[in-house]
């Protein structure tokens, strides 16, 4: 893999930041299309984060390793979106949650379950799917092939 995929932490060079690098969004979503959720891990303070980025948000270090994330996590907070934007109206109401993965990385995502069926602490598992036609209509040109991460109660 071009860019950074071997997990070794070192500062990224500009020429490595291509659309194949998981430190860029196209590279991150390409890996997600292959079913791999990649994150960054800070060599300085161990913070994990999704998507990978060239610097650690917790301490600012640029010694970042790219690592595949666990698919398992837990709901930290959740809500039910009664009135989403038009792109998502067909699926309303949506259950959306902040998930903490077992790596410690946190991200926001949809939960494929009714709001009543989950709660803070519910274990969930990552799934990945293509956008629906309706969602693709609202995607920007460069996002059409980017998949969506959705969590399912484990």
């Amino acid at each position, binding site marked *: 893999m071009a860019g950074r995929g071997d997990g070794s932490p070192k500062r990224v060079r500009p020429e490595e930041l291509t659309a194949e690098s998981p430190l860029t969004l196209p590279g991150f979503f390409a890996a997600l299309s292959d079913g791999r959720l990649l994150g960054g891990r800070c060599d300085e303070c161990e913070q994990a984060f999704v998507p990978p980025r060239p610097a650690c948000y917790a301490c600012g270090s640029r010694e970042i390793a790219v690592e595949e994330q666990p698919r398992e996590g837990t709901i930290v*907070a959740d809500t039910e979106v009664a009135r989403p*934007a038009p792109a998502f109206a067909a699926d309303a109401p949506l259950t*959306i*949650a902040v998930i903490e993965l077992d790596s410690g990385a946190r991200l*926001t995502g949809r939960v494929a379950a009714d709001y009543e069926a989950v709660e803070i602490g519910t274990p969930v598992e990552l799934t990945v799917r293509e956008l629906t036609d309706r969602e693709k209509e609202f995607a920007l040109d460069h996002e059409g092939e*980017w998949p969506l991460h959705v969590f399912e109660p484990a």
Partner: protein
Amino acid sequence: MPEPVILSVGASPVGESELTGRDLFSVALAEAFADLPDPAEIVDALYVGNQSESYEHQIMYGTLLAEWAGLRHTPAERVEGCAAAGALALRHAVRDVRSGECDVVLACGVEKMTAGGTAGATDALSAAFDRALEQRSGITAPSQYALLAKRYCHETGASEEDLARVAVKNHANATKNPRAQYQSEIDAETVLDSSYVARPLKLFDCAPVSDGAAVVVVASAEAAETLVDSEETVRASGVGAGSNNLAVAERDLTFVEGAHRAATQAYEEAGIEASEIDIAEVHDAFTVCEPLLAEAVGFAPRGTGVQCALDPGDRSDGWSDVQVSSSGGLKARGHPIGATGLYQAVEAYEQLTGRAGDRQVEDAERALLVNEGGVADAVTVAHVLEVA
């Protein structure tokens, strides 16, 4: 170092207006300059807080408002940090005066949110979220704050009724504010019976979609002396600003660290403690924000923020006597996004100069303003204002 003061303010009524953004600005400017020389005679720079080009399909709001004020060649620009845009404009004005670069600077804010309807506002506000993971998941502004509310209630034991009381208090305050969008009292049942927008938040937990514009005239104390009596000025004695991660998931969900840092910096610059603040306008875009911010800026012990809805005498130990959101807050005064930070300054100016009419807080001498952008503290700007 020149001392920055606010010497005049103006603001349009908040609500759904037939006027466009530039017209709302004209209203605010006419009020602010009713007793001042023409802007062209005294103003050195102009900053405009404005959230979204989508409402009016208009960028270049710096130049546009400069022209509309008769400031054709004056340096002018738009600043944007979503809902913190107004206070970012104010911070520039304060800093340009402090540095000696300018004598008089206009901090302006304008938003005509109703131009695109509720759907347009929902979409325009979602642009403030991280595109990669947040926006694409279909999350909305109320649901972002609902995540905070859910977790806050989970950790502190606060109830939906506790949150509702924040809205009740702010509606009551707004009845005395002639500029407020909602000048009607509500009770907790009104909030609790309103429909869920994003559980646990209901319609009446949310600030409305609003049109409005505000102007704050900042000057050096020396320049101000030549323009107004000293009792008409308010000192801008402290400013703080900072960012936090864009994605809510990557922040502390129950402690608004960005607001804590910004307020702390503002207190330090002003040389005061949180307990010395008499009045505060904080960013209650949703009811849960007010307790979160009360804790983050040092008014309340952790977990007791919902007591912001109580009279100072009824709060538990450790709480300050601050009066929060005498204007009615974003919830009831209204929330024209890019102007909100300046409406906060307008309220504090009127309170500190004794012009707040029926809603005057007695002996108000020091005010804290907290204006946030993005979801909660993705960017925060805090100002301390004090009587001259």
